[in-house]
């Protein structure tokens, strides 16, 4: 037995094949792990992106805003829009308002008691005021579009 082992160690034949095999296996394992890590990372990124897209879409679907009253004060050139978040999700903010195709970015949103707020919770009511430029003509029907922070848009028409 000991002679056989000795002969095996002393024999130089096939050593290079063993070493090359070991190197090859090590390389394959390394590349395999790298590929696994990369695919996991890609998969995770894809998951996150898809998850965010789905969440954004579902949140947008749940958003509803209704116009309670729109009042235009010609003397002060002030348009006040009262609305309610009638959807099933909170965090409804106003990103843009379009009156007669003129854009007004991020008007200050307030609750009905006058407290400034960034967004409306579900079933919460609030209002914002803007000064249309140019001022609106009296006795006309004006379209108004509000675009929420999530990208939903709600349309109404009011008489000046």
């Amino acid at each position, binding site marked *: 037995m000991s002679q056989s082992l000795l002969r095996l160690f002393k024999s130089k034949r096939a050593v290079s094949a063993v070493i090359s095999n070991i190197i090859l296996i090590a390389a394959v394992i390394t590349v395999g792990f790298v590929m696994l890590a990369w*695919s996991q990372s890609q*998969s995770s990124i894809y*998951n996150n992106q*898809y*998850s965010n897209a*789905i969440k954004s*879409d*579902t949140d947008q*679907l*749940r958003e*509803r805003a*209704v116009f*309670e*009253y729109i*009042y235009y*004060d010609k003397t002060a050139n002030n348009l006040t829009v*009262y609305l*309610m978040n*009638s*959807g*099933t999700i909170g965090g409804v903010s106003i990103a843009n308002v379009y009156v007669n195709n003129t854009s007004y970015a991020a008007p200050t949103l307030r609750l*009905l008691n006058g407290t400034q707020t960034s967004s409306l919770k579900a*079933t919460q*009511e609030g209002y914002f005021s803007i000064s249309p430029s140019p001022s609106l003509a009296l006795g006309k029907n004006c379209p108004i579009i509000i675009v929420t922070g999530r990208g939903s848009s709600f349309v109404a028409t009011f008489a000046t």
Partner: protein
Amino acid sequence: MLPRLRLKKTRRRLTSNSKGFSSIVGAVFAVLVMISLISTVFVWSLSQNTQYNNAVRQSNLADLDRSNERIQTNVTCNRINDSWISVNGTLENYGSLSAQIVTLWVVDATNKNYNHTALNIILLPGNKTTLSGSTAINVALNNQAEDSLSCWFISARGNTISEKSFLIINNYNEGGGNEVPPYAFVSGGIGSIAMDFSSFSHYDNVAPANGSSVGSPVYGYTISGIINTMLHVKVTNYDLYNRTLTITGGSMWAVTPFSGTIKGDQWSIANVTNGKLITGTYNQFINHTQAVDLYFGPTQASRSAGNIVPLFILLYGQATYENGTKIDYGQNLPFIALNVT
């Protein structure tokens, strides 16, 4: 060689030869790992899609509920004083879903004032809430008599309920007196034109010719069936929607046929100006809250002679909204009976 022996020999050769076995095991593991990864991603994607579909379904359901909300209001705005408005009437949920009323808006269109008040009225299906007396909703709003008011309710689902216009005719609740329903509300239930019962009079012996004098009015409910008579009554337009009414020719005051008469008598609407009968096309405009005199005849009520007969004022014409829209309008005013001798 027997097939059984051949199979046994093949199995022995396979198990005794270890070459390539590790490759097979590795491949199996690789396939398992791949299947596991793919199925995980697939199931995860499916769950995301399910989540999205749920959101769509909930959203559609909410929209459906919102459109199925059925609340009927019959309310009026009464002036309490210069600073307060009282909203009275009924709210009825005749839908199949419970509803919550969260806000009441009141607008004084005359003075461009508006205000709102938060409410929390829960209406179960079929429930009816009466806003009256202590349950009437008072809203602070600067106003004056004869201002035009609008009010509407907002439900928690986001529906706007009952936007109606009212005219404050008088200070009904001034001084805390008994609440009197405004005329507009009363006439809204039976029609836009209200008749002043006490103004009824008739003119006797009027010749049916252009320019003939109608004479003096006779206040009473007995007329002769053998002479030409004209009938008169004062009416007021209390239309709920501030419409102007136009009464056209063809309107009449008629006796409905009843036992004892084969055909009833009728008095066609007529134009009387400065006490004289003017024949020709008839058109009578009645502005909102305006009171006008209506004349009918002359007619000889011979068919009704000897009977006490019921009379019906049959008015037909057009109602014109403030924006110019016109629709047909017809109303029947009963209540007066005559003794035709």
